[in-house]
């Protein structure tokens, strides 16, 4: 089980959290202006790297806030976490 550092509550067990996938995926400012391929990419394509990955977690059974974690998908090593709206 992962030990995930919530930026507000500190390190807690993975079962307190909910996963949110890739971080920093912004809603397109003008969705109607996108081509079908661009809209499909926004809806369905997410990075899936083998290595460091910036991802979202929600401390669902704690402070219930969303934040970001830089974690290595090959080793599960967590490099650091940071609050939503911040950049690593």
């Amino acid at each position, binding site marked *: *089980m*992962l030990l995930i550092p919530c930026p507000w509550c500190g390190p807690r067990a*993975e*079962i307190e959290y*909910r*996963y949110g*996938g890739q971080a920093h995926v912004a809603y397109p400012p003008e969705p109607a202006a996108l081509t*079908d*391929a661009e809209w*499909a*990419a926004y*809806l*369905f*394509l*997410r990075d*899936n*790297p*083998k290595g460091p*990955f910036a*991802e979202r977690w929600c401390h669902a059974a704690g402070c219930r806030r969303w934040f970001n974690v830089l*974690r290595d*998908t*090959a*080793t*599960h090593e967590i490099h650091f976490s940071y609050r939503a709206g911040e950049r690593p």
Partner: protein
Amino acid sequence: MVIVGAGGHGLATAYYLARNHGITDVAVVERGWLGGGNMARNTTIIRSNYLLDESAGIYEHALKLWEGLAEELDHDLLFSQRGVLNLAHTPQDVRDGMRRINANRLNGVDAEWLTPEQAREFCPILNISPDSRHPVLGGTLQRRGGIAKHDRVAWAYAGAADALGVDLIQDCEVTGFTTAGGRVTGVRTTRGDIGAGRVALAAAGHTSVLAALAGFRVPIQSHPLQALVSELLEPVHPCVVMSNAVHVYVSQAHKGELVMGAGIDSYNSYAQRGGFHVIEHQMAAALELFPIFARARVLRTWGGIVDVTPDASPVIGRTPVDGLYVNCGWGTGGFKATPSSGWVYAHTIATGEPHPLNAPFSLDRFTTGALIDEHGAAAVAH
């Protein structure tokens, strides 16, 4: 031609390229060893009772091939059509199950509804008490479904492909692709370059990594999927029982181990392991359904890396790079499809056009919107 990945799908593809299309100038390159990835890690369940026409087509084609495969490959695959029972625990599960039975029958796929009493008759160790945490309200049964011995399937396809002249190259990781004018001309590997007019990916959880090397993206997220076996027990469990609602699926292998699969771990990973709490959750559900398992001991747990698509259906077809093909996205349920996956992928590579059975499973369905949403029939227990 080069096939990247010597798992079940890659090996079956090589075999059918040679058998159906007479193409034997084929190398299957594998970063590990034959059948050592998800082919060695799945829970070997075979069924074809999917909801949608497209899925019924490809999975039923697989089941029909399974029914003659041991004879064709001249290899005892321990294919056992002992029946797959999908349990319903809520009124909505019941409605969905009955709808799926009707859809299956329209597609020529055998399916029947069992009441809780009939389910216990079919699987006597099943707890159908209404007081249970997840009461059994009935279930769908596909009698032609069952299990096979995964390792034997991999070795049978490998042996048959080898006998027809296909080269199988292990310990050979693809590190890049060579292209000319937007067309693939070969692969770079840890053991040197191989020139090829056509290259076919069959790399499951590592497809995104390979696609990135070739310069395109696939709608895949890689997750750990865990399973476990118990110590060897007397035969107690005569069929396959799956429960999507409580995230467990169980059969008993020929040797005697109870084989159980869990749901995926939530996060992206390439590490072939997951959290123990996922196993614990799965065991809690299994004990509720099968109280007799309470004294069984876990012998071994493991994880594989599954390639999950947004609509729980695979992607088989062309890519944005000419001559480069992809077969991926089988997620948590690729083993059952091994024969037809190889069959239609070989057709696609050999002719340059998809087989009618895999045409709907193109990469561009995510742009056109023609998704094949099998979350209901696939769910966790694909």
